[in-house]
């Protein structure tokens, strides 16, 4: 609808604006032309009128001469006795001029004849204006005056005078003069005949009103038009026949004015009069205005009709577009099955066609998008590793199922939460995130995630930064792998490695021992036997000698003991293992050290309840050796006043059952740098002669042979705890 409205509106607006403007233009133009025309007309009229006036006055001018040449008057003047027939003068007055008074004046200035009987006999000088005329005529000139008020009649008139000459005399002397008052109304009548809508004013050379329409109410020779713009202008030119036409505003009324200066006619040169013709524009243009009004009405009507027509045309044209629009509106991402009808073969039809094609393409794209999205969704969903997407400010945007499962949240709980709820490295989240973003990525960073319960799960974090087209960071994608198992495995591996190293040490010692032992035993034997042999050569009763030999013997034995111990732990064999009750082993061991402990005020706490009846596969004596050794060490460490706590419990791991025995003492503890070496053979902190240092390595080997593990934990000042883990015997 909007387009059709636009269309109509455009048309209408164009029409409404253009047409009136055009019309107005035309109108103005017409008016202007008309104005020109009227002005010209007016000017022509004025000029014509002026001309007519001139001609009339010229005729009067001529007539006066004719009268002057009348034999009658000649005779009258020559023969004073000739009595004029009044009728004859009256006739003359009527036939010529027209005059409203004629004087025949003799050369004395006496009026000898006149159309007005009263004047006869009077001296012409009594009428000063006439007098001037008389004198002029007496000079032989044909005289005419400007428009004046007659002395005789008190009417406005032009005094014409002509000499009456004696024709008989070849010198043609001026016998007298004929003086006539022009009947001015004749002229003013002319002016009256102009159409009433035009104001006509005849002005003299000073711009004084001398004739016009009677209705105008202006007083002859009284009203001045000298101030009139037009009048002033034309007068300034002072050229006879000059004229000007213009539009003016006179007394707030727009008028068309024309002013013509008297041009005279032939010998009548006039008196520099001007004819001012004025027409009110309203009147002048009335027809045009009327025409304009009519045209406006017609145009309006036409426009209304056109509007109506265009409206319907518009609607018609729009219809296919509307249909297309409706169809387009029906398209949503959801429903791409709609197609536009292609009814016409024009551009709209093409548009509809293109549109349909686009919809088809869109459908295909939509399906591809959905497929791709489903694909990636499935990938993300089925990912084993956790996926968390955060925005650059650290707000969690998206989480996959694995992450929710691992952390124990629902999707709603994590949406828009700050990443600090999950990521534990404070440093990581504030500083590292920025670094990480700057570098564009992070690979295999070991950190931990926090679950809903606050538990920390070790993870291996990798991340990448996602940017938009402009290069701005849109989000940060974090993929984290739960490495709890790996770390556990690593720790176990470490433990096993340590065990292995320890075992290696042991077997190295063991292996070494066999060769070394032999190499030591032989010399020992030689020393022993040679010494004893020597005895033969020495005085028998010498005590010193006897003592020396004894010392040598004992030392040899001592050395041999070391070798023996050394060899011992290489030779422990599993062949002699039986099912034994562990708590019995510990019971007996504790019993054996009880006295020693009590003497030094050391309490030994042991409760075998938890492992009552539990059996192991092993050697009773060997295990007893272990516990004896550990207890003895503990007692030695504490020295006096302390406590040894032995605990034993079952532990289930990976389907197997183990017994965990802990022996804790309140001794001074073992410093960390020594702790790793306590199981090494010959490692002892005791003085030489006090223990071979083989005890703990022996313990280690025995436990190892029993497929168990022994570890030591210690804190300076807090004491030492030995932890033994032994597998429970199978059924």
């Amino acid at each position: 609808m909007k387009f059709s409205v636009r269309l109509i509106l455009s048309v209408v607006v164009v029409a409404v604006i253009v047409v009136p403007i055009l019309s107005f233009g035309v109108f103005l133009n017409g008016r202007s032309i008309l104005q020109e025309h009227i002005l010209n007309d007016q000017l022509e009229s004025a000029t014509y009128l002026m001309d007519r006036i001139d001609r009339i006055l010229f005729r009067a001018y001529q007539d006066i001469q004719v009268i002057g040449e009348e034999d009658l008057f000649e005779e009258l003047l020559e023969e004073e006795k000739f009595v004029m027939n009044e009728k004859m003068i009256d006739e003359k007055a009527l036939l010529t001029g027209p005059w409203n008074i004629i004087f025949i004046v003799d050369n004395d200035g006496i009026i000898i004849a006149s159309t007005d009987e009263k004047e006869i006999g009077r001296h012409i000088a009594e009428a000063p204006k006439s007098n001037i005329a008389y004198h002029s005529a007496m000079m032989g000139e044909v005289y005419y005056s400007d428009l004046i008020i007659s002395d005789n009649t008190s009417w406005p008139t032009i005094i014409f005078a002509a000499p009456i000459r004696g024709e008989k005399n070849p010198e043609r002397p001026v016998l007298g003069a004929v003086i006539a008052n022009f009947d001015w109304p004749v002229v003013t009548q002319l002016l009256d005949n102009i159409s009433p809508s035009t104001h006509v004013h005849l002005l003299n050379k000073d711009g004084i009103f001398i004739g016009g329409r009677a209705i105008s109410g202006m007083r002859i020779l009284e009203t001045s038009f000298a101030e009139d713009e037009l009048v002033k202008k034309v007068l300034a030119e002072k050229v006879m026949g000059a004229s000007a036409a213009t539009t003016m505003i006179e007394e707030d009324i727009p008028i068309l004015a024309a002013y013509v200066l008297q041009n005279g006619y032939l010998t009548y040169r006039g008196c520099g009069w001007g004819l001012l013709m004025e027409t009110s524009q309203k009147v002048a243009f009335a027809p045009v205005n009327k025409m304009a009004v009519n045209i406006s009405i017609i145009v309006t009507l036409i426009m209304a009709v056109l509007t109506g027509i265009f409206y319907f045309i518009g609607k018609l044209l729009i219809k296919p577009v509307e249909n297309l629009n409706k169809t387009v509106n029906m398209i949503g991402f959801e429903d791409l099955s709609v197609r536009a009808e292609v009814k016409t073969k024009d551009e709209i039809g093409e548009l509809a066609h293109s549109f349909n094609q686009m919809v088809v393409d869109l459908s295909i794209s939509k399906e591809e998008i959905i497929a791709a999205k489903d694909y990636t969704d499935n990938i993300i969903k089925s990912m084993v590793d956790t996926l968390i997407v955060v925005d650059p400010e650290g707000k969690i945007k998206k989480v996959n199922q694995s992450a929710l499962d691992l952390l124990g949240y629902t999707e709603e709980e994590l949406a828009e939460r700050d990443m600090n709820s999950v990521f534990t490295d404070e440093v990581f989240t504030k500083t590292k995130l920025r670094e990480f973003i700057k570098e564009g990525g992070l690979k295999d960073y070991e950190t931990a995630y926090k679950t809903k319960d606050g538990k920390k799960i070790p993870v291996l974090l990798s991340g990448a930064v996602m940017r938009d087209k402009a290069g701005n960071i849109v989000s940060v994608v974090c993929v984290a792998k739960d490495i709890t198992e790996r770390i556990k495995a690593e720790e176990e591996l470490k433990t096993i490695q340590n065990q292995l190293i320890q075992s290696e040490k042991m077997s190295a010692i063991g292996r070494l021992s066999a060769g070394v032992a032999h190499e030591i035993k032989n010399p020992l034997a030689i020393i022993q036997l040679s010494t004893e042999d020597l005895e033969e050569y020495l005085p028998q009763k010498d005590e010193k000698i006897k003592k020396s030999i004894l010392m040598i013997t004992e030392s040899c034995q001592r050395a041999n003991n070391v070798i023996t111990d050394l060899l011992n732990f290489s030779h422990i064999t599993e062949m002699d293992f039986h099912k034994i009750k562990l708590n019995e082993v510990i019971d007996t061991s504790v019993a054996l050290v009880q006295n020693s402990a009590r003497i030094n005020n050391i309490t030994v706490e042991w409760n075998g309840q938890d492992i009552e009846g539990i059996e192991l596969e092993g050697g009773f004596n060997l295990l007893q050796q272990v516990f004896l050794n550990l207890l003895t060490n503990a007692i030695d460490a504490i020295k006096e006043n302390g406590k040894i706590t032995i605990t034993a419990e079952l532990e289930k791991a990976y389907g197997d059952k183990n017994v965990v025995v802990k022996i804790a003492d309140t001794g001074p503890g073992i410093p960390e740098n020594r702790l790793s070496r306590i199981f090494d053979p010959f490692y002892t902190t005791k003085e030489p002669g006090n223990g071979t240092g083989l005890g703990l390595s022996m313990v280690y080997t025995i436990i190892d042979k029993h497929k168990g593990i022994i570890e030591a934990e210690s804190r300076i000042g807090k004491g030492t705890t030995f932890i033994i883990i032994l597998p429970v015997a199978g059924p």
Partner: protein
Amino acid sequence: MKKILVIDDEQYLTSVLYSILEKTGLYEVFIANDGQEGIDLIKKYNFDLIFLDYIMPKVRGDKVLQFVREHSDHKHIKVIIMSGLIDILSNDVVHSKQCEEAANDVSEDRAGTPSPNIFPIHLIEQYGIQGVLEKPFARGKLLSLTQTIFEQEKNGKKKDFNT
């Protein structure tokens, strides 16, 4: 006088053993520092007792034992084994698999070092050994054991040995 042969690769040891045994005046003592040398002497002389070191380079003790027992001429000879490495587990006399393995382990020697061999107890039965002396042993032990073995022989009994 009884003839005794001492076979041990340790020269000092054979020297002092010779000295000790000779001094009793009871025995005629011969020495060999080598298994092969020992065997040669056995072939040559008629010995009554052989002190045999088990672990020797080149020819190990059991080779000598084999020779002695396999030859009817020498079957009767008494043997006392001397060894630094005897399978020892306190009072247990155990057939040790490890000992057997070690006993069979001949070839992996480092140059100059005697192979780490251990005298396997079961050889006592196998070769009819009369006695075992674990090095180092005292003179007294040596002499008393020798005396006991000869007395047993005299008494016609074969007594179980004492180490």
